[in-house]
């Protein structure tokens, strides 16, 4: 049995929205019993991806979903924008590559922190990044 529930849909339009995404994701992580390290990884990845949505995607949305499979819980974050897209995804996922003058660890770092990572992008149409985080212990 798998159930998927969308808990939140947040807009990312300005810098303070990155903070809102972090706070919302933290609350969800706590509510499903993530350990402190799991919470911190999830919230940090959310912060990186929300910033990407704002700075590279010219704003967009963050969706927070809860997936329950047999005995396990996954928190999934889906970031969508209708920005310029990523012309070279392999390059964008390379450590240290930055098109915005950052450290170039946003996308590659979020991929490392997550248990599941999925990226869809179409030049001129936008980008969707999905990350899944599993709780270490099976939920009962």
């Amino acid at each position, binding site marked *: 049995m798998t159930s998927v529930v969308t808990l939140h849909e947040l807009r990312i339009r300005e*810098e*303070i929205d*990155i*903070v809102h995404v*972090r*706070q919302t994701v*933290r609350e969800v992580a706590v509510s499903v019993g993530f350990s*402190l*390290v799991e*919470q*911190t*990884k999830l*919230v*940090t990845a959310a*912060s*990186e991806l929300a*910033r990407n949505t704002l700075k590279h995607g010219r704003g967009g949305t963050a969706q927070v979903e809860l997936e329950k499979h047999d005995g396990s819980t996954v928190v999934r974050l889906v970031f969508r924008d209708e920005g310029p897209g990523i012309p070279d995804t392999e390059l964008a996922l390379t*450590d240290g590559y930055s098109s915005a003058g*950052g*450290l170039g*660890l*946003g996308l*590659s*770092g979020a991929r*490392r*922190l997550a248990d599941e990572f999925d990226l869809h992008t179409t030049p001129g149409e936008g980008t969707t990044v999905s990350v899944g985080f599993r709780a270490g212990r099976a939920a009962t």
Partner: protein
Amino acid sequence: MSATSVIEMGDVLLVTVQGELTDHDAVALQQDLAANVAERSSRGVLIDVSGMEIVDSFLARTLHDIAAATELLAAKTVIVGMRPEVAITLVELGLTLPGLATALTVADGLAEFGDGVRPL
């Protein structure tokens, strides 16, 4: 949203960062600190991050840049009290921040500067 305080202890600045910092807050802190160090001829800056639940790549870069800027102004920056879960996450993110001085407690951080710093 966030509370950042700067206390002068002898010739060391003790900076406490708490709560949620926006990117703008982080950049403002960097500029404030550089100005403060130059104005007061501080020898050191201690940044207490024990109140921070996450440090992402933007904030990590800002901390690194603060240390680099204060170094040019003849002051050393020490990052104090990072939470273990934050350290684990930063390493997994790919940020080991080489060259950044750290200490576990404010007292240990102050000890880096030796004489001239009076405890509170």
